[in-house]
């Protein structure tokens, strides 16, 4: 007896909530890293006050970090989406193949039964045929 149901609910992939959470964290991190104030300290020199040049360089660094962080955030999210799509497709395909194989097995079983029944009838009729053939001789 086969107890495996054909229409089983799919195994969930990466949840929307999890994806959103990772994306939001990455996004926030990118914005934080893109603040020029967070990038100016590295250009400080002892005894010299900050000038326009340091702030300008900090602004460029900040823009690069923000752009890079945002690109990573969206890229990671796309990878998660691709994983989910492929995972769903693989499960649906496997489920469909399982149903097809189950159908084929049932058809083969029905055929084997029908052939066995026919052979039994053939044996009986063969005996009757031989008897009648002998009687009529």
């Amino acid at each position, binding site marked *: 007896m086969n107890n495996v149901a054909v229409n089983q609910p799919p195994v969930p992939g990466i949840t929307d909530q999890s994806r959103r959470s990772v994306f939001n964290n990455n996004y926030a991190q990118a914005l934080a890293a893109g603040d020029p104030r967070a990038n100016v300290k590295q250009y400080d020199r002892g005894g010299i006050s900050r000038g326009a040049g340091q702030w300008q360089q900090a602004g*460029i660094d*900040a823009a*690069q970090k923000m752009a890079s962080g945002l690109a990573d955030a969206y890229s990671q999210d796309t990878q998660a989406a691709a994983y989910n*799509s492929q995972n769903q497709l693989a499960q649906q395909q496997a489920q469909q*193949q399982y149903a097809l194989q189950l159908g*084929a097995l049932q058809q083969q079983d029905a055929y084997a039964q029908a052939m066995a029944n026919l052979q039994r009838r053939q044996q009986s009729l063969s005996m009757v*045929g031989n008897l009648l053939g002998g009687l*009529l001789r």
Partner: protein
Amino acid sequence: MLTYDTTLQAQPPVSGTQMQSALRGLRIKSPYGYSTQHQDVLNALGDQNAAQYQMQADKANSQFGAQKLNAQRDLALQGLQQMSQARQDAMNLSNAQRGMSYGLVNSLLSGLFH
């Protein structure tokens, strides 16, 4: 025509709406309003990243599309092979039934005309 659209319902990874949203997000206007140069660098990199994102999304959608098409073909082919096998089995059964009837008649006739 077999499409398996109802059984293979998985959607492509990046929809048009998601793509547009991501492209807008990558071309961000700096929330710091710091300097023109800061925004200029951000604009240039945003455009570059948006182009790369679009390519990455297209690639992911294309890979998914190819996988789905292959899956549809595999399932359709498997189904057709099974239908062919079932038809062959049905014919075998029919031939065996016919053979049995002929065998009986043959036995009777050979007895009669012996």
